[in-house]
């Protein structure tokens, strides 16, 4: 029953997004623009610069900026016609509502990130396929951390006038450590360094923050949504 409620909310959000493509178009375009702008700063043809060494930073900066745009829309969408009230009045747990929305956000972000990884590979001539499964694991773990915190702060800031500003201001400080882990691991993998003794700690850190953030949200979401 719980899983069905989560999937019902996620399907509703994805269907609504598919019909308008508001968040997807804006966030994906923004992500690509950031990657293109980086190419002006770090000339991909300059042999003095090792692109794979800085690739993790470039990718995750683009991912996290675009995530803020997507996640901002998550609960703001519910303000139209007071839809949030109807969801809160329905017989579902606040955490089911949250995870439904988080799942939809996660799916959207994953699609954007995988497509822009291809764009990045073409723009900077970086081989991403060599370690693709490890790279996907890092992207999944890093994106879940961003999604969970971002969706929760989206709920927290939904009634604020400056929510577009407040969401990143509140979200990024929590993401410093998991983003550092994701950046380090992504750069290692694009440099041809597989998971091993020197970077496995970062992978554990990423998993730890995913579990921590998810647990925190389960504890707090009812208070965040109903007060």
């Amino acid at each position, binding site marked *: 029953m719980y899983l069905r409620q989560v999937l019902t909310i996620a399907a509703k959000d994805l*269907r609504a997004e598919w*019909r*308008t493509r508001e968040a997807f178009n804006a966030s994906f375009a923004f992500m690509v623009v950031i990657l293109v702008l980086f190419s002006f700063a770090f000339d991909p043809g300059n042999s003095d610069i090792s692109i794979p060494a800085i690739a993790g930073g470039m990718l995750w900066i683009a991912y996290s900026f675009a995530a803020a745009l997507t996640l901002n829309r998550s609960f703001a969408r519910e303000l139209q016609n*007071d*839809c949030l009230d109807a969801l809160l009045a329905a*017989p579902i747990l606040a955490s089911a509502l949250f995870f439904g929305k988080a799942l939809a956000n996660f799916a959207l972000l994953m699609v954007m990130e995988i497509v822009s990884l291809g764009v990045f590979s073409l723009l900077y001539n970086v081989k991403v396929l060599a370690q693709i499964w490890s790279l996907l694991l890092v992207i999944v773990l890093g994106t879940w951390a961003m999604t969970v915190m971002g969706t929760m702060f989206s709920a927290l800031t939904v009634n604020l006038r400056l929510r577009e500003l407040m969401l990143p201001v509140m979200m990024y400080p929590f993401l410093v450590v998991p983003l550092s882990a994701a950046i380090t691991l992504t750069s290692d993998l694009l440099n041809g360094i597989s998971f091993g003794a020197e970077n496995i700690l970062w992978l554990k850190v990423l998993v730890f923050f995913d579990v921590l953030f998810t647990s925190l949200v389960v504890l707090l979401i009812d208070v965040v949504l109903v007060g």
Partner: protein
Amino acid sequence: MSSAALECALEVRGVWKYYGDFPALRDIAFRVIQGSTVALLGRNGAGKTTLLRILAGLSKPSRGSVTIHGANVREESTRRRIGVLGHGISLYDELSAFENLRLFSKLYGIENPAKRIDEMLERTDLTRVRDGLVREFSRGMRQRLAVARVFLHDPEVLLLDEPFTSLDDRAIGVLQSLLNEMHARGRTIVMSTHQLREALEAATHVAMLQRGQIVHAGERQQEMLDDTGWLYRTYGEN
């Protein structure tokens, strides 16, 4: 459980609600017997919407408690028994009429949802626009669909905030007929309103709020119907 307790559909005990230091509700306490239709009256800012949001579990009281059929309003099983119509239509513009109702039928775990949805669309005269997106609907159609959403799961307790405001004549007719049917089936209805005539005709009981306090609560009197201003003159401020 005593028969008296069984008949109590809704109980509010010592509810206070503060916004900062401002008490929007002060020590509200009342019981609503099953099958009653309560008109919650009061001027703008009296606290009607705040009280209804607390009754619906959309806001927590600063002090006090609300129970519906003896259970906490935030419990899942209790919420299944409540229907809430607030100021907004609470429908998604990007979804069709059918998709909106299917979403809520899934959340309420309604058996045989397609049949129930078609039934409600027919009651609200929206069958011909079943697959049309809500964003393409006229205002009246949106309001009727909102009414269909509230009655979809056949709630035992209805909480309606200004239900007649901004409804067109057709939607008022649909809502009144559904409310009459609910009342005849022994359902409990609490509605806040400024439309005194419609509310008093439907009500069995009246509660009047003033500055966050209940200044009068009791059965509807004939004087109230004969002269809708009587209530405000008798119990209200100037």
